């Protein structure tokens, strides 16, 4: 632009570029944003493929990639409306709706990468929504298997395999789950997947063994997972690993709860508390103790131990700073304990306080396994 002096206000002559019509759209390509684990974002790119080893994208006309290990997520450029609605549904824990919406997005997406991603998310949401329902779990299995067939080396493959194992347990196929998870555990390194997948598979395998009442096997799998996760944490610690250690540490106690040996379970958790140096483990142990004491009281049909349960669960809540699962579990059982204590041992508003506990789980921890139980508890 140039200026010439004049009276009054400014005089400007506008650049001729102003008056030319610019192209209606600068580029026909997508404008995705890739978020890396370091927090760095790569903007103005088009994601073309997501494999278990690399995330490939176009920047202008140049093809580039980052290692899958560095990748956190994609912010897709103008995804279908159903995809956005599905994200909203996931945020509020409505996985059933999310599954349908992601399914629509998989059908409507013109982009292959987004299509596959939607397909996985639909299957994953379906699995999360099954909530113990075998029939739904079986539908979820089919969806997960369809995704794995479509993208055997996809970025989401390890996660899909893990979810497959969890869902097989719900579908009453615990033996198959154990076999699949053992396979994932051993193949993770041969496929160059992040080592944490092997540890996570170990944890789920222990749960599959628990579901088959193979309690000794489950206990040793839980212990092996603790060892594996602790070894990984020495190389590069993360809150995910700490959560894994906590979950696996209390796993042994959970086998005792499954056997209804509540006194032994309580003793196990108390011992764990004594030896624990990790805050997450301490929190998980308190939550486990609270659960064992509550279930013992429930089974015995009396209210002894309920205050001790309430206290343990409150402590779990204070201590837990990482694992959503532990806080969600503590909140859930805190609500259950209030209902059990009843009007004789609590003020008249005990029910609404219990409902608030359940509501906190569904609102703030919608993706935890306890959210579905809390929803059910609220409606009861």
């Amino acid at each position: 632009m140039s200026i010439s002096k004049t009276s009054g206000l400014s005089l400007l002559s506008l650049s001729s570029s102003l008056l030319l019509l610019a192209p209606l759209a600068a580029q026909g390509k997508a404008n995705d944003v890739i978020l890396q684990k370091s927090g760095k974002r790569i903007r103005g790119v088009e994601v073309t493929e997501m494999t278990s080893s690399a995330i490939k994208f176009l920047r202008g006309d140049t093809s580039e990639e980052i290692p899958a290990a560095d990748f956190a997520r994609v912010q897709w450029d103008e995804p279908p409306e159903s995809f956005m609605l599905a994200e909203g549904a996931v945020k509020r824990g409505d996985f059933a709706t999310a599954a349908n919406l992601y399914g629509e997005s998989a059908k409507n997406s013109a982009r292959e990468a987004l299509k596959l991603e939607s397909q996985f998310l639909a299957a994953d949401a379906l699995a999360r929504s099954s909530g113990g329902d075998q029939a739904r779990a079986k539908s979820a299995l089919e969806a997960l298997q369809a995704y794995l067939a479509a993208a055997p080396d996809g970025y989401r493959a390890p996660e899909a395999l893990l979810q497959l194992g969890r869902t097989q347990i719900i579908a009453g196929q615990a033996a198959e789950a154990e076999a699949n998870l053992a396979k994932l555990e051993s193949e993770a390194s041969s496929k160059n997947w992040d080592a944490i997948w092997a540890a996570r598979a170990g944890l789920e395998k222990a749960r599959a063994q628990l579901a088959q009442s193979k309690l000794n096997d489950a206990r040793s799998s839980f212990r092996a997972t603790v060892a594996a996760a602790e070894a990984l944490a020495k190389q590069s610690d993360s809150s995910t690993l700490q959560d894994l250690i906590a979950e696996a540490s209390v796993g042994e106690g959970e086998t005792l709860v499954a056997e209804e040996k509540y006194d032994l379970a309580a003793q196990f958790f108390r011992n764990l508390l004594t030896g624990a140096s990790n805050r997450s483990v301490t929190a998980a142990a308190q939550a486990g103790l609270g659960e064992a004491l509550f279930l013992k009281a429930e089974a015995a049909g009396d209210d002894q131990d309920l205050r001790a349960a309430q206290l343990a669960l409150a402590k779990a809540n204070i201590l837990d700073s990482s694992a959503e699962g532990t806080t969600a579990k503590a909140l859930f059982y805190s609500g259950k304990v209030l209902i059990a204590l009843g009007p004789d041992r609590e003020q008249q508003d005990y029910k609404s306080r219990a409902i608030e506990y359940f509501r906190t789980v569904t609102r703030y921890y919608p993706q935890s396994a306890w959210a579905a139980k809390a929803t059910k508890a609220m409606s009861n």
Partner: protein
Amino acid sequence: MKNPKLFTGLLAVSLAATPLLPAQDKQLARDVEFVRSLATELRFISLATEQVEALQMSYKDSEDFKLVSQLGIEISLIGAQIHPNREERRRLFRDALEQSKVFIERYEGEPVADAAMLTMVRASYEYGSFLVEELELAREEAPDQIKGLEEAAAQVYRDGVDACESAMEKLEHSREAGSKQEQDYFMCWLYKGMLLRENARAVREDRDHLALVSRDTLEEMIFDMGEDSILGMRAYFEMSQVGEVLGDYKGAVRDYKDTIDSIDKILSNADLEISASAKELLFGLMQQAYDRAANALFLSGNTDEVLSFVLEFREHVASLGAEGADIYDVADHSVLLTEARAMAESGDPAKVGAALDQVREINRRHPNDFIGSKAKSVLKDILDVQSSMVSGVLMLEVAKGDYQAKNYEAAIKGLKRAYAAMSPSERDAKGLELWTIAGRCYGSQQRFLEASLALCDALEKHGQTPGGDAELTADNLERTWNGYLRQSKSDSDVALNPLKDRVTTLLGSYGGTDSEAKLLYNTATRDLQEGRIDQAIQNFGRVPADTPFYEPAKGRLIICYQRKADFAQARRLIGEYESWLETPAAIVPEENSAGRANRGATKATIDYYKFYMDYQEATGANGGDKDPTKFPGIIAGLAEFRTRHAAYAENFMSRVYDIVARLQAELGEVEQAESTYRTLRNEFPGSPLGSMLATVIFTAHQDYMKSVEVEYDALMETEPDRQQTQAATEKLTLARQAALNSGLEYTRNSPQPQYSVMWNSVLIAASLKDWKTVEDLGKKLVEGFGSDEKYRDRVERRVKEKLGEAYLRQGNFKGAVELLAASEEAAIAAGRPNYPVTRLLCLALGGWVEFDSNGTRVIIPGLDKADEAYDKFWTEYKKYALNSSRTQDYDINWYTFHWECYQFANRAIAKDSMFRDRAQVLYNKAEAGENFASLKALGPEGVEVANLFTSYPPK
């Protein structure tokens, strides 16, 4: 150079501040200015609105009434721009637009309507911008709201463009060079271009087309008015943004830099004579250009370029005379926020830390506006994604923000993470504060056990923190522990003994002086809570004057007398306290922060109870006569409660909202009541007041809906024309929908929704033919009340009937038959046949004939068992339908029965030709040799049934 926002303000003020008609009355002119300043300077929007209403009453027969009405619209718009609550802002924007439309229609053709049109243009732009801000937030926080917001924004922009075109048409002929009319004309043109552009930004589908039209509009304007003015530069800048909307970031950045360069040349040229206000405008425009350019660079992915560009910006601002000034006082914060985002995304830990500091500062300066919301979103993003790079101390600050925003569970999560991330020395320094806040978060949610544990941790681990207020923490602990004892009925379970001992030890070590006064106060508080009012009065009265508990005790005494319904005594004590405040004994030294806090809290308590007693008297809750004339005064007084008492208001705000909403509902101000209710829900999601208030709001909606129904029926009696019918139908539909939405919201948010609200919602949904909602609610009613003795019969007979109809109308005939058949059987077994269910069952079996929305006759087949349906209808339903207690020969019920029976028979012919005769007989009976004349004479319903007959003659 001042804040660039001034530019937008001046832009806006030039459109609407001065009404075209001067006030005929000088007193009125002064009143108008006074009211305007209440809103703009003191931000007392409710008070300003009340003053406007009073002026409207005073000037209702005067020519100046229009001016006053215009002022009302302006106040709504000002309120919409500055109100701290976004829900309330949305309502005020809608009000401003709605009032503008009504005003313009009423005074069409008069000059005052032209001024209102300009206000409407501005309101459309501001509201649309607000919705686009909501859209941007929704993309991160609530993606499922995007579609609704896009549609709302698009509508607002379309209306705005229409208003611009109308205004321009009117101004076209009267604009002379240099006149106010010409300025307004060009402003409307500019707004038109901006509105088209924003419409393109908001709505993906029409983006290209609308962007092109916007560009053309602005280009034409620049050609027409010339390029050598501030407005021309403004238009160029607005046009540059079109490129950004279309994703041409490179082109947009180039154009923005052109604007920056041009303005820089002007501002740097000492030879040019430019007024101070023009310099302000240009400086502001330049900063906006920097903001858009930084944003475009950011979106195009080059964070390094963003950072160097913003560095240039900082230097540039400094060079224009702001050297040495705090950058936050002179620079556009939106630019700094973009810089922070770029730093955060760099992955460099040092930059991430700097970004956090910057975002926190911006957030602190923008507690309630869009920039603040964006800053909070950026903060959350950094913490979620890069928590390993963020210090525990910073995380604590963010968690405190959540605590202050009453987002307690989020605060608790953040506090725990912060503590885990802190180094030992950070824990020593901040641990006491952190766990004390955690205790308050738990306590605010009535989770007194967790609160007590948190506070015990605070004292045990960090009670010796130098400079820490351990005594305050101990005080909190005592409160929460007493709270837990109350909740647990002071349970003597041995499991609690270690904790009891722990608490006792800590209170002994850290509890402060004034212990006797504290003891008295605490005892009295327990007396009050447990209903021993006289004892409480005695004990509060004994709290010594020279202790920190004296004033709080005064506040509690007033509560005691209010509970005793001795308002006179309560008010006398209030008067005494207020007089005491004027005495030297009441002086609180500046450094006595606890004393000042007590003073603030006590004043808030007293103020609240003053209004509460007024409320009880005005509503007759204390046994007297209701006096609605007092409601507006109470509402206005409470509307400014938070402004009067700031942080001390928080303990009362949920109750304040409750009272205000109830009074608004009683006054028939349903929308306002709903808005207040939503504010209560948003700010206090766990409050039990929310559910109870929801039923009041629902009832208010229902009352309004019923009044509209009465209006509608009365209108139909007068044989209105098509336009009248359409307008009345729209109004009725809106009223029903609003009532239904209210009922649904209540059902969603109540832990145990009431049967009556849900059932009434079902009926409303059915009237709207929203069968999906009928189904959803019906199922919930069956699930929630089906096995409750009190409601079982209603559920079996009424709810299942409606649920069956919902299945039917959605084409789920099988489901309908299953449900309705079971319901029918149960009714018969109980000895009370349910004939409406029988009728629906027949429709499900045999289908029906109706007209669709285009007036075309359609046949709904049902389960295609028209023969079975006919038999059942004729043998079982007939005795009910033609019972003389409800049906006379040849009335509408009679004809309707014959029609339904006929259409079954007519279709059953395909299965068995013997139905032909039956169909013919039924048809002839209704036609009666007079071409349905008697039927048509029964009114619109009769005409409809007659048309059905004639559209579907016998086969």
